[in-house]
């Protein structure tokens, strides 16, 4: 493309005499329409090229890792492939029993052939020292089975036909049809079982999807708690933010800019610092309790337990997320013309009616923006509940972290995270549709 055509201004330099061959042309004789289209597509490309480096960067460091997490949530090769820790060499394992599963429909009573396949597989597993990882994989779906695998692998060399009896001799549990159903489920590296587990479902011996027993169901309860706590925190931030935002919006700018420091300083202060401060304040030997005892409102042994429970999570998160509600409310309230309310008053409305019918409806967009933002942030909160939440103040994020760092059930963690991510992305899409990402402001 020539430089003249690239320049959008070239399109302006119309050759006045160029009407001869149907339509206007540029100075170098090209049709004006084509030159304009070329210039526009050039400008488009130039804009896109500016964004491209960052887009690639974010795709690699953010979108791609998220994709890996999604993959991990449906993929777990613990029962199908062994990766050597040192050489990274991959060996297929449990091949014989997986062939037996393929040949027989779900629910088939394991026969001698099945046990023989399993015994052969255990020889290889023992040789590769993979019993631990195989057992761990089965243990995810059926707790308490890891030791069964390590124990059997140790004795694999001594197994003699008939294999069924020999294996049942090692442990009676090998006759459990549920165990065989779990192994069948794990015999494919790709499985939806982790998603089932993440919503408190499991498969029974016949391969049907059933609810887990109530005493073991946990995740639905936690998702519900996360939603309820987030709603409560969103509501509390709204209640606290509305009057403050209104005050800031109606004061003259020089005062409101000064008071804005009270909102922006928490916003700028480290999250860990704010959480630490709340721990200091809320402890049973902390400032608030001490003040209440000193003021005679509490007896020394009647100190309120405000930390390591839901109360702590709610108070600290409300404080931390409050600026995210105040700022959108403020930016909507500031341009509201006070003469509307005055007009309503002069027409005879009480101050309450004027507020309810005139002022409040004008602030609804700000409420929507703030509430959606606070809710999105609250649903995924991790640090504060982990530090002040105790047992019953934990949210779903804390459980994801638990499975990532403690129980090491990464696929389940990934499945839980994917469900959470789906919810967040839905809300994010809603936010973009209703408010627009461009309108997100920081201070």
């Amino acid at each position, binding site marked *: 493309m020539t430089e003249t055509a690239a320049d959008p201004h070239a399109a302006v330099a119309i050759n006045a005499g160029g009407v001869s061959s149907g339509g206007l042309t540029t100075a170098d004789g090209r049709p004006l329409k084509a030159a304009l289209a070329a210039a526009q597509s050039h400008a488009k490309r130039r804009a896109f090229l500016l964004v491209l480096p960052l887009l690639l960067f974010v795709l690699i460091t953010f979108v791609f890792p998220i*994709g890996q997490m999604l993959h991990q949530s449906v993929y777990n090769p613990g029962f199908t492939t062994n990766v050597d820790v040192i050489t990274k060499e991959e060996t297929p394992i449990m091949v014989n029993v997986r062939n037996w599963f393929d040949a027989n429909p779900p629910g088939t009573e394991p026969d001698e052939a099945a046990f023989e396949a399993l015994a052969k597989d255990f020889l290889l597993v023992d040789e590769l020292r993979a019993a631990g990882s195989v057992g761990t994989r089965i243990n995810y779906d059926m707790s308490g089975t890891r030791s069964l695998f390590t124990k059997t692998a140790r004795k694999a060399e001594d197994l003699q036909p008939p294999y069924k009896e020999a294996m049942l001799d090692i442990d009676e549990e090998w006759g459990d049809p549920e165990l065989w159903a779990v192994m069948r489920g794990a015999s494919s590296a790709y499985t939806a079982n982790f998603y089932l587990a993440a919503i408190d479902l499991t498969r029974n011996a016949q391969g049907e999807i059933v609810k887990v027993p109530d005493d073991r169901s946990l995740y639905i309860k936690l998702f519900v708690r996360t939603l309820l706590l987030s709603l409560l925190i969103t509501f509390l931030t709204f209640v606290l933010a509305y009057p403050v935002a209104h005050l800031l919006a109606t004061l003259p700018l020089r005062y409101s800019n000064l008071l804005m420091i009270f909102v922006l300083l928490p916003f700028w202060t480290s999250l860990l610092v704010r959480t630490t401060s709340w721990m200091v304040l809320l402890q049973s030997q902390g400032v608030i309790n001490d003040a209440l005892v000193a003021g005679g409102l509490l007896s020394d042994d009647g100190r309120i337990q405000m930390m390591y429970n839901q109360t702590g999570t709610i108070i600290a998160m409300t404080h931390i997320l409050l600026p995210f509600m105040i700022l959108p409310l403020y930016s909507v309230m500031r341009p509201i013309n006070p003469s509307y309310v005055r007009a309503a008053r002069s027409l005879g409305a009480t101050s309450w009616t004027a507020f309810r019918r005139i002022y409040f409806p004008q602030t609804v967009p700000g409420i929507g923006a703030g509430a959606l933002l606070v809710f999105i942030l609250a649903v995924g909160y991790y640090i504060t509940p982990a530090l002040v939440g105790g047992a019953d103040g934990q949210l779903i994020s804390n459980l994801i972290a638990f499975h990532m760092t403690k129980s090491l059930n990464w696929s389940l963690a990934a499945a839980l995270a994917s469900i959470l991510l789906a919810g967040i992305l839905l809300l994010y899409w809603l936010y973009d549709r209703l408010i627009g990402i461009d309108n997100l402001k920081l201070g």
Partner: protein
Amino acid sequence: MALPKHADTLERIWHYAYIVICCLIFLFLIAPILIVIPLSFNAEPYFTFTQKMLSLDPTGFSARWYDLLLTFGMNNAEAPRDSSWWADVWANAAWVNAAKNSMIIGFFATILATALGTLAALGLSRPEMPFRRAIMAILISPMIVPIIITATGLFFFYSKTGLANTYFGIILAHATLGIPFVIITVTATLVGFDHSLTRAAANLGANPRTTFFKITFPLILPGAISGALFAFVTSFDEVVVVLFVAAHDQQTIPRQMWNGIREQISPAILAVATILVVISIALLATIELLRRRSEKMRGMSPA
């Protein structure tokens, strides 16, 4: 917010009640942040005000927790405080090392996020940008997606690519987390950017590069700097990704704080918290100055 003269008693009561409520909410916002400052000078290892502190007795206060920040992790903390003692602090003190790591990671993550983010913001604010909305949504998403999900994804990604346990990996992750802030602040500066200025420059014979460095760059600089500050603070405050992908000896200030809070919270944490609060006050002041400067520059430019 002045009360009109014709207000009745009920309205007067409500008006004053409203002001009291607002003051209480402001107190709720600011008190938790300021409370750590006096408590960090506690002479006793408690998290509450002692009798001596309340009666302003000088013996109730001490800087021992600040001293602990220097001596914790040293080889020979009891040695006389000469140059070799300070060399020991610089080389071995746990908090000093954490601060060094945080600064290095924060510095490079900020540079990366600001350079890429400013460039992209320039493209995004052009009216002819294709797929603007979708691309913007992708670029802002690291701020919206919960940090635990990002950290989980990075953990899988880094353990496959060998970026786990490297500073480079942490810097990349922190840059990603800081990018949304840069995009938001710089695009906000570019809203209402007077494009006739760049056209005028071109018209006067400046080539695109001169136009950028003489006209566009000075005008977006305040936005870019506040974006950079946001990115730095994000990195400086980030603990979850570091916990998931960093090696055990790669301590940063937030990670050290996290460990301190989880294991046994000591007033040394409050000393760190106080230092961080002072830093955030300084940053806030900087941002405010930049905002005023930006407004002033806009005021000078013909609308």
